[in-house]
């Protein structure tokens, strides 16, 4: 019931927003985002206090892992929604808001179903809902970005479909339990008896497919284009939670693959792709001349770290990876929102065109600096804690070489990111930017997100550790 209401909120809101204009549209948009956030938080609290929520004969199901993602989608969705009215033409806001809430709906659906077939449909739905959002500014560059995004992600997701078909095939070959062979709960129960070679092959396809969506190198090529050309609230959603939904899909299959084919198989793939992603990102963080592209490559880096954490495994690695997903979602969506403000003030997304942020836009500049420090993993912010957990897992689980190499790459990425941030914050701009908006309203989402990052970094709120424990129990049975 609760789960159904959560999913219905953005869907109904999107449909109502189709024809809405002017202040009605803005108000309806705000209401939909608020209700979605409230629903998401309610679902995740309920799930973490008791048993998984189940609806529609088990078709929809939210356990602790789903609840974690649902809460993140709700929070990042609200952050992005608070910034969206700045980007919308008041005359015809309908299409943007419609697609925005549909996008959130598809992501929520992907993480709250028990059926891996429906999960596939929903993940594909995220691409279809967001492709016009990427092209919202209708420039040549954004057109190119949306074309690449649609083509690459459609091919990727078709490969994931192949993987899903093979999983289903393995299930019905072994047990003939066709009615529920695509249910994740069934799959997990049957996993020890599934044909290991088939499951391995399926997992390769699944990782390539959902890894495309997650932005793992070498399937990440759509990501810098789409993230840099989309309007800031959409970039925030894509980078903050869409990539994690891709990781989530892989993560759902991991326990079944571990049970069917042994723990080493998924681990090897995840470690290799994670390390490659961090390496690719570290290189491109030094060469990007556009700050939104730079932030997009930083997302590749962080998703790589998440994969490393999942690959190292164990309690520490898995909990670290999940916490890192949350920290990255907060920090990256915030920095994309700020970069959108910077871009509209300076009229350019080139690093060279931006300078003296601290002087000309002191509040935006301070927020940007704090978020960049959080992103490179400095204390007191949460990313420091989750990175320590991930690397701690790497060294204790017996992968010192992988962890060491990733650590070196991380330092390279750190330096590249800070170099560009320094230019933007303290350099001299070629031309004066527009003044930043006064008042407390623009500062509110920034303060909220930074405060949450401080909480995950310094003092875990009650229930956070417990929620992570519940997820670990699901992923590492």
């Amino acid at each position, binding site marked *: 019931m609760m789960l159904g209401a959560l999913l219905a909120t953005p869907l109904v809101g999107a449909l109502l927003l189709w024809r809405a204009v002017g202040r009605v549209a803005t108000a309806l948009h705000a209401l939909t985002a608020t209700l979605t956030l409230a629903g998401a938080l309610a679902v995740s609290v309920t799930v973490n206090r008791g048993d998984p929520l189940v609806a529609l004969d088990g078709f929809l199901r939210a356990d602790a892992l789903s609840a974690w993602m649902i809460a993140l989608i709700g929070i990042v969705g609200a952050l992005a929604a608070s910034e969206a009215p700045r980007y919308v033409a008041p005359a015809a806001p309908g299409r943007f808001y419609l697609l925005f809430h549909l996008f959130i709906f598809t992501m929520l659906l992907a993480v709250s179903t028990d*059926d891996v*077939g*429906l999960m*596939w*449909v929903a993940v*594909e*739905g995220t691409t*279809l809902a967001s*492709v*016009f959002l990427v*092209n919202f500014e*209708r420039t*040549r*560059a954004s*057109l*190119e*970005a*949306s*074309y*690449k995004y*649609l*083509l690459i992600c*459609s*091919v990727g997701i*078709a490969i994931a*479909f*192949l993987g*899903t*078909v*093979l999983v*289903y*095939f*393995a299930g*019905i*070959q072994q047990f003939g339990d066709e009615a529920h062979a*695509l249910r994740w709960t069934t799959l997990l129960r049957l996993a020890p008896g599934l*044909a290991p*070679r*088939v499951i*391995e*092959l399926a997992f390769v396809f699944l990782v390539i497919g959902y890894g495309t969506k997650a932005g793992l190198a070498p399937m990440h090529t759509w990501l*810098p*284009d789409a993230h*840099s*050309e989309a309007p800031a609230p959409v970039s925030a959603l894509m980078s903050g939670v869409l990539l994690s939904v891709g990781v989530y899909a892989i993560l759902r299959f991991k326990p079944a693959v571990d049970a069917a084919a042994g723990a080493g198989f998924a681990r090897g793939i995840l470690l290799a792709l994670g390390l490659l992603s961090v390496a690719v990102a570290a290189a*491109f963080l030094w*060469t*990007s*001349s*556009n700050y939104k*592209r730079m932030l997009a490559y930083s997302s590749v880096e962080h998703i790589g770290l998440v994969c490393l954490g999942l690959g190292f495994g164990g309690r520490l690695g898995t909990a670290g990876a999940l916490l890192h997903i949350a920290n990255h979602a907060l920090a990256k969506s915030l920095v994309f929102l700020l970069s959108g403000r910077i871009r509209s003030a300076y009229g350019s997304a080139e690093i060279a065109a931006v300078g003296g942020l601290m002087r000309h836009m002191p509040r935006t500049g301070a927020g940007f600096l704090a978020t960049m420090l959080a992103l490179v993993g400095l204390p007191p912010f949460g990313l420091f804690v989750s990175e320590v957990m991930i690397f701690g897992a790497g060294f204790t689980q017996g992968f010192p070489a992988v962890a060491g190499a990733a650590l070196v790459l991380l330092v390279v990425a750190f330096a590249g990111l800070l170099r560009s941030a320094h230019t933007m914050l303290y350099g001299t701009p070629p031309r004066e930017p527009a003044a930043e908006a006064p008042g407390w309203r623009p500062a509110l989402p920034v303060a909220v997100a930074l405060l949450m990052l401080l909480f995950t970094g310094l003092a875990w709120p009650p229930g956070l550790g417990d929620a992570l424990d519940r997820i670990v129990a699901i992923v590492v049975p």
Partner: protein
Amino acid sequence: MTTASNLLAFLGLVVTLLIVWRQSWPARLRLFVAQSLLLAALASTIGVLAHRRGLLLVAAVLAVVKGWVIPRVLARIASGDPVRPVAPGRSSGIALLVAGGLVVAAYVIMLPVTAAAELPTEGAIPLAFAMALIGLSLCVTGRDALGHILGFLVFENGIFGLAILATYGLPGIVEAGVFLDVLVIVLIMEAVVVQVRREHDSIDVDRLNELRG
């Protein structure tokens, strides 16, 4: 059932190879229609012989969506473009050779599946996968938007064929999702291509090269 599924999948592969070979767009579009109809025939054959009523419905939807609606949309996309002369000196020999290699690769990759299968249709599974791989290569090497879409659709057809052969049809909601998905992708592609053409006076994606690094 073995004979029928092997024959239909083999014909599907032959049609796929013809798509690789032919250069003219109308011919390739007709071949794609033929491939989709062959798949629909495959689905209905298995549906009848294995007593799966659902597959008959799937076959009907497949024939309508991929045999009629999508080709019409593709023809509409192509009609706005001046007929591209076949590039001189570009032979299909190497592409066909690569496709041949992909067929062999498909057999190797699908070994675990055919080994685990106890189905009368298992012999055709690698053929369907070969179709998918060739479609993927068409999509990757496509030089304009139409080439990309066609490659993607052939790829999708191959995966769909594999799904039918290996599982005798997926649960209804997934099948419905797949059809809806392909249809929406093609429609969005059309919208994007229309815009690309307006911006660039061509659908040659070599001109989409502003985003680098």
